[in-house]
């Protein structure tokens, strides 16, 4: 009797625990799996909802929206080309400045910096990426703007004004300021990826190059840069993707009106992001809102392409090197 009662009270307890654990594992895997699938689905939701918002404009203008040059709120005629141009022009301009600077910072942090300052300078450079873009934009319009107008833009305009890039008289806002602000925003990103790439270069091939009598720069140029080429391209793509998508700081410094497909850096302009951010608050008609969302779809497409390509390169790269 007694033995069986112990069995009776012991057995269900143990099996209950076994059942809980059996289902617990399944349920837990199920819940977390749903969350993981939800993470992937989020991208789908973002694409779907943005396209849904843009749908009326897509039906109205079709693909010709992309090369349409007019943005006339009164006539309800909208086209994206000036903003696509502004986005590519400022982003590529920023990449041209930030690219070499970031690679130089990466080389400094990986090769030259004394170990005492390496960590500090590295985190300071990354701190630059933590500053909210709206604060950088405020600084860009109120501090950098007047300096661009008087101290940088003025001399460039009077010296090189015959070039189409510097034809206008500089003001506090414009494409030039936008390029500078974007440069500041993307440099920390590309610099920290470059640093990581450079520290992955095996020391034996670096030492081999030095042992053959190469100078440090020849070693960097001959060994480190070729070894990390794919990753550096990905780093630039990621920086470019960030520049393309940045809306707030650019809106603050780029000015109000667009001048179409101008290359003049001292004129005001508009990017996809800045046009959305500056016109959405005052947008009255549904077609105008929808057209702004259509600009968002183009922006989303550009950022998805650059990010996916860059991420795939970065992955292939680091797996190759670790293997």
């Amino acid at each position, binding site marked *: 009797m007694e033995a069986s009662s112990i069995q009776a009270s012991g057995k269900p307890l143990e099996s209950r625990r076994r059942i809980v654990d059996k289902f617990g594992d399944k349920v837990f895997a199920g819940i977390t799996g749903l969350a*993981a699938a939800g993470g*992937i689905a989020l991208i789908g939701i973002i694409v779907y909802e943005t396209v849904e918002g843009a749908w009326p404009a897509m039906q109205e203008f079709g693909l010709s929206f992309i090369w349409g040059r007019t943005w006339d709120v009164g006539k309800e005629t909208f086209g994206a080309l000036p903003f696509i141009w502004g986005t590519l022009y400022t982003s590529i301009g920023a990449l041209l400045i930030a690219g070499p600077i970031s690679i130089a910072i990466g080389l400094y942090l990986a090769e030259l910096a004394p170990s005492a300052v390496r960590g500090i300078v590295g*985190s300071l450079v990354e*701190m630059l990426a933590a500053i909210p873009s709206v604060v950088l934009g405020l600084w860009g319009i109120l501090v950098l703007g007047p300096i661009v107008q008087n101290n940088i833009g003025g001399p460039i305009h009077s010296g090189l004004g015959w070039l189409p890039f510097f034809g206008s008289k500089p003001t506090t806002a414009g494409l030039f300021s936008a390029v500078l602000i974007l440069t500041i925003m993307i440099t920390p990103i590309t610099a920290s990826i470059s640093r990581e790439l450079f520290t992955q270069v095996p020391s034996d091939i670096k030492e081999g190059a030095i042992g053959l009598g190469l100078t440090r720069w020849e070693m960097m140029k001959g060994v480190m840069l070729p070894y990390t080429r794919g990753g550096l391209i990905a780093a630039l793509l990621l920086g470019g993707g960030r520049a393309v998508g940045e*809306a*707030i700081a650019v*809106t603050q410094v780029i000015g109000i009106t667009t001048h179409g497909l101008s290359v003049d850096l001292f004129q005001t302009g508009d990017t996809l992001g800045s046009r959305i951010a500056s016109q959405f608050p005052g947008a009255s008609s549904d077609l105008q809102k929808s057209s702004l969302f259509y600009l968002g779809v183009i922006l*989303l497409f550009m950022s*998805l392409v650059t*990010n996916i390509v860059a991420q795939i390169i970065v992955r292939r790269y680091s797996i190759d090197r670790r293997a």
Partner: protein
Amino acid sequence: MEAARQPLGLRATGKTRRRLAKSRAVDVLATLAAAGAVAVLGWVVISVLLKGLSALDWGFFTQNAPTFNPTGTTSGGGIANAIVGTAIMVGIATVMALPFGVLVAIYVSEFSRPAFARAVRLALDVLNGIPSIVIGICVFVLLVKGTGYSGYSGAFALAIIMVPLIARATMEVLELVPASLREASFALGVSKWRTVLKVLMPTVFGGILTGATLAVARAAGETAPMIFTNLVYQNKVSTDPSQALASIPLTIFNYSESFDTHLNDQAWAAAFVLMSFVLISSLTARALLMRSQRKLRGR
């Protein structure tokens, strides 16, 4: 013949000297590039400190926006409602994004097959690269269009921005946990879900906390989603997230382009508040992260 006449020495001459000089020049340029980046950071931070502090007073934290003055510049006022609004929206966003991001990370590093894990990682990294203004549009179409601006919709947009940051940070610390810890738990007959909750989670708690702090710092400074979710709000302190709420970044954005110099000053003061919060929290997070990683690696 030429070479034989020269005495052999370690001093670089001719072409070698030029090569060395070039190499040193590159050293200097690279150092200057790094110094330049640090200088720009210093320039921005000091500008915000100086201009922000001079515009700060106690009323800035307790009052709402100054009322419009058609005859000249405004005076007084503050950002009390924006501070409260940002705190509420970031808080709700954290409540949404933190469990979700941690669950995603647990599945990817503990349960998933490698191919699916790779897909989720790629998705999270791509999600992290989607411009926040597009996320704002998405949430506008999804939540705001029918019902109007609200704190909840702003929090939802911020949560989408925070999820990849929290999930990736959690994955990174989970990968640092040594396999022996899991094996010891399994060897004692502990089931997998109990192992995750009772063994792994306490171990990586610090890492998750720092990831969440970095995500909070990022979300607090996001302006673009606010334009689409909380554009028009009442000029009073409100704690009701079903209504539109003020936010610090949108206040800075609106004031920065104003022709009213007092509002420019207010923008600087708000930028000082926002930047202090963001920089201090991300610095703390980084320090904590380094400490917890060292602890895990040294185990």
